């Protein structure tokens, strides 16, 4: 009996993909695309590059899928691949001269993603504040508030102790609460 695809867990999707149903990999792409792009955005805030990095990461993850030790931890594993791809991409970029300005692409990207209640500047400010966090703090903040995972789920995905993730998350949260205070006041008015 065919499983209802919308109810499949990551584990089940990966098992089906490895059994030959490569088309199901797209379910993982759609599920984690937002988290991958958010992670890839980094300090450079280059949306086109972030999408390239996310795409390369999903392809690389597919190529090594059979080697994933714990299929329940696909999200955490993917996040690490995105972080690596971001470094590789950044190094490659240093060797090339960009021939187009970043700004039009960034403004179009923000226009497509911005809540009507938030200005492009506010969104940029938030991205900057999160981008300036240490990598491990950024990771847990994005997994919590963009990925919607709990501390237990994040700890499981990253193979860290829950207490460690809690400490990182609360430190990141408190830092961000102070950094974003002006924006939060504006939004709450």
């Amino acid at each position: 009996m065919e499983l209802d695809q919308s109810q499949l867990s990551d584990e089940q999707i990966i098992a089906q993909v490895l059994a030959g149903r490569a088309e199901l990999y797209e379910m993982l792409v759609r599920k984690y695309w937002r988290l991958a792009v958010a992670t890839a955005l980094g300090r450079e805030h280059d949306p086109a590059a972030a999408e390239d990095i996310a795409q390369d990461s999903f392809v690389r993850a597919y190529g090594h899928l059979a080697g994933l030790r714990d299929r329940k931890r696909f999200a955490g594993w993917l996040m690490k691949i995105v972080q690596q791809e971001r470094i590789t991409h950044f190094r490659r970029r240093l060797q090339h001269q960009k021939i187009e300005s970043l700004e039009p692409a960034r403004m179009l990207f923000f226009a497509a993603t911005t809540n009507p209640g938030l200005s492009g500047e506010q969104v940029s400010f938030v991205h900057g504040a999160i981008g300036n966090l240490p990598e491990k703090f950024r990771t847990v903040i994005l997994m919590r508030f963009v990925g919607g995972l709990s501390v237990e789920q994040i700890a499981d995905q990253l193979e860290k102790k829950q207490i460690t993730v809690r400490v990182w998350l609360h430190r990141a949260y408190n830092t961000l609460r102070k950094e974003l205070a002006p924006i939060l006041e504006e939004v709450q008015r």
Partner: protein
Amino acid sequence: MSCKPFQPIFDAMIDGTMTAQQKRQLETHIESCADCRQAYQTHCTMETVISECFTLPGPSSEITQSIRTRIANTKPAATPALVWARGTFTKIAAGILLMAALGLAFTAGRYAPVASIDAAPTAYSVQSVQGTVLVRHPGTTTWLPLATDSTMYVGDELVSAPNAKATFAVGENTTVTLSENSMLVLKTVGETTELYLASGCLDAALESPHGPFFVTTPHGRAEALGTEFTVHVQ
């Protein structure tokens, strides 16, 4: 600052572990406590702002098609994508040792390379460029100018303008020169090398003996049997 007895509930809210009962308790409490009400509103606003600042569109149909195409030529390998090691230096050293031990030969389209923490695809040097030649790396939409002494990777597409040409090395003693008004894809390099010449002309000089070397065009596929040859797509 929230009331001390309710701090664990606020912590659970941050952790994403607040139960329905805790939520009801908090909602009852904030009706009469201004400080906790402010803290609660600040948290909700922050959660909303962060989430909505990353309310990104899902992958476009172009991106999903690109991923489909790329994974269609890839078989999921039972090799680790990440090498676990403590410390940055140890990670880099472990990666280098792993790549050297396995005699890494990058074959795009079949298996992704066994990756270390700093894994990167094999680079091929560009020996010379005359005029305007553009390169696009796989999975990207940006065309970049190709420069002498820059690097190319498997999957790269090249486009040369009128009066332009580029020469690059593929393997140790094999060079390819792309002529003007041409378009080329570096498909695979390794035990078998394959180039796709969509249009224009290329010259190749191979070492002898050499492994299977193919040039595919819209009209067919040619295998190099000698050491110097030209392929011209009309």
